[in-house]
């Protein structure tokens, strides 16, 4: 299979972000929280401070590096929750049909009808700002798309010979769903998941902007960016670097998603066959 440029660039960007997050303690120059020294407040980027320092005198570089942890956790974990909910509901609804399908459909329509950012805003208000709340808020509000895809895949796979064969062979419903349907619908789900991670990172930033972001003092790119917005003219480095980090990571995820779609999406594959 020919690897596409978007897959490579996207994969590299995303892998880089993950690596930065994992290696944060080694990459960072200073502790992102405790090393606040007001004597160094708001230094422009220099050899000592690669990305400059913020109002509290903390090294932006180190904070961006540590920020990868929070931002990626938000992206990955919340999307994972979404995927699990979406697949569980969509798969079972599509396969089992009947009243359960109606229920899941109603739920999906409900989730689609309330814009997810608004829903997340409401949930954040209830749970209070913080990482866990954020994971829950973003994890509970974006599964409808996955669910629809999973349901549609389940419906179409259900009539595939091998699923019918499994039924004819006396497999239980759960076994059929897990061994026959699930592995064959992962492609599009993974694609949606990758794209969803990107939008979760952006949603985190948006919620930060609306005043309901991640709990301090651990920095997230979104909260850094949102806090720095007042100083866009006076200390642009405060926002440029976290902004760039978000941009590159989300760009990477989007490219990766596109690239994966080219490979995994049966439609585009059959077109090439």
């Amino acid at each position, binding site marked *: 299979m020919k690897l596409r440029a978007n897959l490579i660039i996207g994969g590299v960007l995303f892998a880089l972000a993950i690596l930065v997050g994992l290696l944060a303690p080694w990459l960072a120059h200073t502790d992102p929280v405790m090393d606040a020294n007001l004597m160094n407040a708001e230094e422009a980027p220099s050899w000592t401070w690669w990305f400059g320092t913020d109002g509290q005198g903390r090294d932006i570089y180190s904070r961006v590096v540590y920020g990868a942890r929070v931002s990626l956790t938000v992206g990955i974990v919340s999307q994972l929750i979404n995927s699990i909910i979406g697949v569980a509901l969509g798969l079972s609804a599509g396969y089992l049909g009947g009243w359960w399908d109606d229920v899941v459909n109603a739920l999906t329509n409900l989730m689609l009808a309330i814009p997810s950012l608004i829903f997340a805003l409401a949930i954040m208000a209830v749970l209070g700002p913080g990482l866990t709340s954020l994971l829950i808020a973003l994890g509970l509000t974006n599964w409808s798309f996955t669910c629809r895809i999973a349901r549609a895949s389940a419906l179409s796979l259900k009539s595939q*010979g*091998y699923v019918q064969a499994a039924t004819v*062979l006396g497999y239980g419903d759960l076994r059929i769903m897990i061994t026959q349907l699930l592995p064959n619908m992962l492609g599009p789900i993974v694609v949606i998941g990758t794209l969803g991670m990107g939008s979760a990172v952006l949603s985190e930033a948006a919620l930060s902007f609306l005043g309901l972001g991640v709990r301090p003092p651990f920095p997230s790119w979104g909260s850094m960016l949102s806090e720095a917005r007042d100083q866009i003219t006076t200390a642009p480095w405060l926002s440029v670097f976290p902004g760039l980090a978000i941009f590159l990571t989300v760009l990477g995820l989007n490219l990766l998603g596109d690239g994966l779609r080219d490979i995994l999406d049966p439609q585009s594959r059959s077109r090439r066959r």
Partner: protein
Amino acid sequence: MHEPQGRADDDVILSIEDIAVHFPLGGGLLGREKRLLRAVDGVDLSLRRGECLGLVGESGSGKSTVALSILGLLTPTRGRIVVDGQVVTNRQSGDRKALARIVQMVFQDPYASLNPRQTVRRTLEDPLRVHGVTAKSEIEDRVGTMLRHVGLRPEQSGRYPHEFSGGQRQRIGIARALILNPKIVICDEPVSALDVSIRAQIINLLLELKDTLGLSFIMISHDLGVVEHMSDRVAVMYLGRIVENGHWREIFERPAHPYTQALIAAIPDPLRHAPLATTGGDLPNPLNPPNGCGFSPRCRHAEALCRREPGPVLETRRDGHAVRCWRSDEIAAQARLATTEGRLNVR
């Protein structure tokens, strides 16, 4: 070759008694108006041990629906299916396994009927495990034997379906159907998706297996040549009903129903550069079937009687040949002329 002739009724391994499958379309809470699609509307069939029953008919006539009902994948709206002495309609969900050990199916599309994410070995081992075979050696044994039966080498079992050709895949599909030692195998168009040059291999294989394993077959096909070649008895379906049912020779040499006649006459004869016999019109919409005999709008013999309700019944004549036509006797004579004469002068 050995051809079973009229046997005693205790030999019947599968009997279908007046089943109907109706699909409600639309409907649902606040949905649009409900309409019933009578995919199968009163079908009686029986299959004897070691026999191959051919099921032919136009697309949408309900052949697959009958098959799926036998397999328990569809619950008939009415009627009864008895498999090996057990009534399988109105079954509980737990019976699925028991039924699986008796009836199995070979699917049409070898590309879609194998799970692309499972090796051939898993495809064959899993059913055994589900059915309580746990001993490793026994599993390996049975899988190996089965692969050899269908003409594949056991070494190939670690591969994935896409590494096989269409014919090989269909062999795997057959192996899967046979791994539980079923008594009945239903083949739904087993060769129509295969390359022309491969079809003979599969047809031969099926016939071989039928003899060596003593299987009973239901063979669904569009291809009358294949049906004629394989079947002991043939049932012709039209619009959800059996219109003719009998010994293969009867059906192909003395078709009694005008539809069967039309069907046979529509097959082009490669040696005759002659116009094909046409009936006119398409299969009617099953949502809105014609009055009386379903074939009457296309039938050139149709009279007022044919369009009157109720339609004709399936009437069994001697030697088990059953026809659903008011006028079959009158037509039969002409038909014999039409089909036998021009056609059967093969080398």
